[in-house]
């Protein structure tokens, strides 16, 4: 007898439909899985055999062949366990085949037949709806997450036996477990108000967050660069529902998301500086999203920028510009979203003290400078110096709360969205030179101001545009329709350009 059950393979952050066919015929008892299944899927045979027997069903003592179609697609992951088990039960007549027609099945089996949570439930649910399937059968621990997809009946089950009963119609359709949707999330852990002695930086950070500009923090160790960076996600407006779905889907696939509902907080990722290029942008034999994708819609923090492998930093350039990264492997091409805010931090020199107290030799300094002035820094609009706060500042200064800043940022973002309607850009940082010219409303006197600086010290064309983009954000924060000379002036102090190379040499 023959049966067919639908499931999905996870390919990068997308899903591909997989049809699991089971055929049972007379012959020596055997259980073969074909169709480019990887190790974890072939191991499923043992789990399926044990789970079927231990759940009180009959495991047919015949020749069983299971085929995973399409055969060119590599399938991996333990979530095919339940699919295989249901296919075998259907082929042996223990479930009626027509009950499986519009139902996708996924789940990992324990030997006693209970179901374990799987990764990527949201992605599977999206795949099911995309392919016009009406129902999705999966472990109840992930039912809540799958139910975020509308117009799909999610059947959360706890054991193989329960699954069969639900499919036969002998058990009621299971209720979704009650779990709060993790909407706004708790932001109490981190708040800008924790930062002391750096009130002068708040305005600069606010500009970076409001315009979505990548940010470079420079200062001696222990002055609070990491502390500030960690709080940046709390300054961004809350995730919108569609953004939250995107983030949840990605995090669920790599197993970062343990809760039931949507991810509520903007992601913050801070990979160690020994990370490989493919760890940062995604890749591997079976491509997996990199840190920049995990930081999608949030903040990617690179501490000790000068220590990062140069190849890894180079790899970041194109994804930062395009908002997505394309990973090409022999068999397939995958696209990962990479819409994050980059925050880089570095000591002023290798010994960290900088200025008068620096103990670095000239070549060490030169190497440090060279690493920092690479093409990645070219993509960063705003550079902020974080000095060692004085004792008085530490005692007296407390930054405003994240909520206060967030409100101003949200207002500035709203203005940007309105102005950039009809363009691919959503915030000032993404404005191209043409958009700056046509949409940014820069007054002639502001342009003149900037050209004065051009004459006095060689500001590059790229540097010119960076200053204008930042000036536009400052004007947005000041609720000004036009960019005036004062906004350009204020933007100058944030620019990334280091001291002229001839003198630093």
């Amino acid at each position, binding site marked *: 007898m023959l049966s067919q059950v639908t499931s999905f393979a996870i390919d990068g952050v997308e899903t591909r439909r997989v049809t699991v066919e089971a055929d049972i015929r007379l012959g020596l008892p055997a259980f073969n899985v074909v169709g480019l299944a990887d190790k974890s899927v072939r191991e499923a045979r043992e789990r399926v055999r044990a789970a079927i027997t231990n759940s009180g069903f009959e495991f047919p003592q015949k020749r069983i062949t299971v085929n995973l179609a399409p055969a060119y697609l590599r399938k991996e992951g333990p979530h095919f366990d339940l699919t295989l088990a249901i296919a075998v039960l259907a082929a042996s007549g223990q479930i009626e085949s027509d009950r499986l027609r519009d139902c996708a099945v996924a789940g990992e089996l324990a030997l006693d037949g209970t179901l374990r949570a799987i990764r990527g439930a949201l992605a599977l649910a999206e795949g099911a709806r995309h392919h016009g399937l009406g129902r999705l059968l999966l472990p109840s621990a992930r039912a809540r997450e799958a139910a975020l997809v509308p117009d799909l009946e999610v059947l959360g089950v706890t054991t193989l036996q329960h699954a069969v009963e639900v499919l036969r119609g002998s058990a009621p359709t299971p209720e979704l477990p009650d779990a709060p949707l993790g909407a706004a999330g708790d932001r109490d852990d981190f708040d800008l108000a924790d930062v002391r002695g*750096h*009130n*002068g*930086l*708040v*305005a*600069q950070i*606010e500009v970076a967050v409001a315009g979505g500009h990548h940010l470079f923090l*420079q200062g001696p160790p222990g002055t609070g660069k990491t502390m500030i960076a960690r709080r940046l996600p709390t300054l961004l407006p809350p995730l919108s529902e569609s953004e939250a779905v995107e983030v949840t889907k990605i995090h669920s696939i790599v197993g970062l998301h343990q809760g039931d509902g949507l991810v509520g907080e903007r992601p913050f990722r801070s990979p160690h500086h020994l990370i490989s290029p493919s760890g940062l942008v995604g890749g591997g034999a079976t491509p997996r999203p990199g840190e920049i994708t995990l930081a999608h819609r949030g903040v990617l923090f690179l501490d000790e920028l000068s220590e990062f492998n140069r190849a890894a930093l180079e790899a970041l350039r194109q994804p930062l510009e395009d908002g997505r990264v394309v990973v090409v492997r022999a068999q397939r091409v995958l696209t990962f979203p990479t819409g994050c805010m980059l925050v880089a931090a570095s000591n*002023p020199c290798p010994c960290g003290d*900088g*200025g*008068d*107290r*620096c*103990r*670095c*030799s*000239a070549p060490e*300094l*030169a190497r440090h*400078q060279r690493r920092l002035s690479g093409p990645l820094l070219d993509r960063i609009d705003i*550079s*902020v*110096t*974080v*000095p060692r*706060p004085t004792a008085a*500042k530490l005692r*007296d*200064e407390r*930054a*405003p709360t994240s909520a206060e800043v967030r409100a101003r940022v949200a207002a500035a973002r709203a203005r940007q969205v309105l102005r950039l309607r009809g363009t691919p850009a959503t915030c000032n940082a993404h404005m191209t030179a043409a958009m700056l010219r046509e949409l940014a409303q820069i007054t002639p006197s502001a342009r003149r*101001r900037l050209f*004065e*600086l051009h004459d*006095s010290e060689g500001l590059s064309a790229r540097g010119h545009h960076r200053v204008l983009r930042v000036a536009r954000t*400052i004007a947005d*924060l*000041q609720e000004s329709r036009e960019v005036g000379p*004062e*906004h*350009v*002036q*204020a*933007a*100058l*102090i*944030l620019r990334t*350009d*280091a*001291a002229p190379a*001839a*003198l*630093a*040499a």
Partner: protein
Amino acid sequence: MIDTCADCLRRTELIAWLAGRIEHEWRLRCGRPQLLALPDTELLRWAKDPDAERRYSAFAAGFAIDRLVATGLGAVCRCSPAYPAGLRELCDPPAVIHIAGDPALLAADGVALVGARNPTPYGLEIARALGRALGAAGVTVVSGMAMGVDSAAHAGALEAGRTVAVLATGADRPYPARARTLHRRIAETGCVVSELPPGFAPRRWAFPARNRLIAALSAGTVVVEGGERSGSLITADFAAELGRFVGAVPGPVTSRMSAGPHALLKAGAEVIRSAEDTLDLLHGAGAAGGLGVADPVVVGKGPRALAPRPEPAPPPPDLPPGLRRLLDEVERGRGSLAELVSDPERGFAVSRDLGELELRGLIRRVSGGRYIRSADAA
């Protein structure tokens, strides 16, 4: 111009052949080898190098001259009347001086500006400003083209006047390699010199040896920044030995980079606060006023070339009070926004005003995103 005798050329080549041997000796004794003062025969006896002896006796001046011609360098030996007079005062004057550029600049009437290879932004700023102001006043700036203060002094001088670089490698060989552009620009408008033959690779002993030439080719030496054991102090010692003036630029007493100049000041060096102080030393007190207003046609750089002023320049009278207060703060070393602002609401206003001051040329952005008072405000 090649004006050399065979003996002097042979001496120069001999030192190049023995460079490795001298390096070894230098590492053992870790001081300037007095070897350069020895006559050829004693050098050979000391070296016990049969290869060098063979080449010494087989030396043909024609080859050496051909090579000089091929590299385009000029050369003057100490037997020639054209040999720079300042060098003759040394106890061990170089046999041949190789020249790329204008030999007229070697009259030892300029000022040597030397200092650390890893200076602070303050040191860089002062070196550049002093170089520019002295250049504008028509004074030749002599330095060693090293990274840091030396390069900044050259770069400043090139903006307004002429400069001499004394190298510890062959005069045709930019060292450090990244100073390639600087080397070319100095050779075009000023002069690059070395006592070592063309193509000579860097040797550690050659740097202190080079410093004696810097001291000898200038009327006085000014040390901008340097650690306690800085090579600039060697240059200052030579200058003092030669009876030339020694000046030092003071800095914060906490700064390691100012330890060298402060030691010199303690030992009696002159305080250099501005180009004017330097010109006073060069021409006698008060003479700077007349000399400072150099003929713009001679200096050729327009109104900026006029007067080297005491630094920092006083703020222009039309500065509004708010900006003036901010400028005062930056002068006191509070040069980053974080230090200037304690009320987050004021962040925008202060950054706007900093931008205004920068556009007016009163402050300058240095590496690390800090601002310092610019030393040569127009």
